[in-house]
């Protein structure tokens, strides 16, 4: 059974390995370059917070000239796309093509039980998908490590770039492994249900794309309840002040939380309610001075309420999210096994 699985997977596996190696070479060359740049800036040998911040800033300021920015975002795009591609090209045809071409009638009448046939196929190709995603993420992790180290040392200006931010999180750590397992199992399931390769591929792409888009928007912040923190809003730290229709007033202070993922940032009144007006008289009246308006805002005692996931939650979130996707993948695999075992397919 191993032989047939390998023989059928061989061409796709070689293509994927070749692409991964090509990307790996690019990352290796640019990554070594980055490491050099970092030690040239003194990032590796600096002593004391101030010296290290200077070295880190020097390093970061040089980054745009090295071409690392497109490599960084390009690799992240590849890591986000890889699970979908593996679901489409490895998962969807796995059962669907056998059903479509009738070869399941050949495969399932060799002296290998159908359960074993499925387990070996899912195991070998599924683990290959997970390994591919994991290796890509591992390589990116090595490549980007000087950048994140420098960003942490350089101070708040550069700390907006954090691995826990929704844009980066899914291409970091072990999360891509979970996505790969899920996308692959999703593809196999779609193929077993739809029985045609091309429609199964389309459904896999749509369904996985939906999950990948919805997850950071609505689900990830519920995995671990975000921390909440209040910040006093003073006239000096208001970032946005607007009056709408003379009935609503927006007062915002954009809280910066270095290294954290700020899930939400709201302005609340002293009683804890969401503040949206009404505007103060001092700010409404045409001939009031800015100082009077500011004083009236200060008198409201507004606070900014943020909920956020601190940088320290990166790994707990990674493990939780990966665990969920791996469990979902196993549930889908079990469903396929049940369906094929019940002979609902022939």
């Amino acid at each position, binding site marked *: 059974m191993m032989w047939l699985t390998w023989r059928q997977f061989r061409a796709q596996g070689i293509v994927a390995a070749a692409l991964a190696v090509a990307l790996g070479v690019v990352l290796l060359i640019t990554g070594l370059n980055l490491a050099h740049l970092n030690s040239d800036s003194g990032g590796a040998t600096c002593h004391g917070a101030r010296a290290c911040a200077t070295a880190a800033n020097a390093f970061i300021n040089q980054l745009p000239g090295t071409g690392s920015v497109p490599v960084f975002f390009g690799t992240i795009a590849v890591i986000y796309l890889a699970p979908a591609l593996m679901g489409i090209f490895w998962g969807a045809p796995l059962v669907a093509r056998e059903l479509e071409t009738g070869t399941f009638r050949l495969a399932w*009448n*060799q002296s290998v*039980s159908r359960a074993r046939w499925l387990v070996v196929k899912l195991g070998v190709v599924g683990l290959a998908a997970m390994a591919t995603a994991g290796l890509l993420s591992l390589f990116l992790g090595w490549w980007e490590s000087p950048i994140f180290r420098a960003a942490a040392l350089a101070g708040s200006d550069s700390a907006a770039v954090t691995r826990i931010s929704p844009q980066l999180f899914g291409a970091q750590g072990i999360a891509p492994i979970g996505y790969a397992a899920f996308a692959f199992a999703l593809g196999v399931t779609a193929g077993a249900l739809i029985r045609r390769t091309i429609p199964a591929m389309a459904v896999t792409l749509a369904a996985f794309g939906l999950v990948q888009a919805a997850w950071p928007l609505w689900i990830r912040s519920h995995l671990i309840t975000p921390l909440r923190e209040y910040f006093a809003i003073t006239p000096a730290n208001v970032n946005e002040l607007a009056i709408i229709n003379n009935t609503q007033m927006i007062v915002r202070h954009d809280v910066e939380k270095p290294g954290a993922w700020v899930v939400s940032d709201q302005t609340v009144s002293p009683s804890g309610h969401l503040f949206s007006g009404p505007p103060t008289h001092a700010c409404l009246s045409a001939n009031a001075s800015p100082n009077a308006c500011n004083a009236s805002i200060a008198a409201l005692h507004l606070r900014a309420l943020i909920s956020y996931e601190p940088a320290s939650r990166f790994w707990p979130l990674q493990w939780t999210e990966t665990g969920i996707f791996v469990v979902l993948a196993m549930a889908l695999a079990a469903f396929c096994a049940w369906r094929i075992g019940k002979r609902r397919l022939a």
Partner: protein
Amino acid sequence: MTAVLESSGLGKRYRQRWALRDCTLSVPSGHVVGLVGPNGAGKTTLLSLAVGLLQPTTGSVEIAGDRPASSSAQLAKVGFVAQDTPTYSGLSVADHLRLGRHMNPGWDAKLAERRISQLGLDPAQKAGKLSGGQRAQLALTLAIAKRPAVLILDEPIASLDPLARREFLQILMEVTAEQELSVVMSSHLVSDLERVCDYMIVLVASRVQVADEVDELLNTHRQVTGPRTDLSALPADWQVISASHTDRQSTMLVRTPVPVTDPAWTADPIGLEDLVLSYMSKAVRPSPDSSPALEAQR
């Protein structure tokens, strides 16, 4: 003698339609069994149930003494060549033999290689580039080289040209003689099966019409001609399969355990093809004792 294929009350329903109903069979081993019936009669359904590709809706079926596909040991006992003889088009002939070797503990590599070279197939050729006849031969090679006790073939020669047909059947006969193999093969043409089968199952409109050894069928069926007679006036042990009447004369196919001795009747032996065709037309035409049309309305 043990039964190679045994079923009782076997039925398969797809949504509203029964593809096979109430099929009770006991086919002894050591035969080359022909399963004949028109297209859509349920032949593929019966064979798919027998190899475990389908699960019965009612009843049960056993092949080579056990439930189909119940274990890898059971799978090893049954060789199957599916309809349209599917093969992996991207894999070469040699790859198919490797597949067989890796997936069957009882694989006979010598037999497989001998067959391929006898057939003149190029081991490096992709299966997708083979002709229909060559593909059928490759599928047959895979099925016999696993050394099964039973070989099931579903319309293996339906899509082949006459020459490839003859070649396929010839090789099949050689193999069954060499290996003491039981064979069940289906076809919608009696003429395909006539030369090779010694046991016949006639399946029409999802029901088994008759199943017996060919010799037994030929010995007990007689084409009887005589004066015009009402069917109810015939001897009690005559089972009328088909009847046609002119003003003065009745011609019937009857099944009777004893020879026809009444001088009023002339009894002639009947060929297998005519015999099978009579069963087929009996099944699709409403007859006095059982009316499929009425039954369907119930």
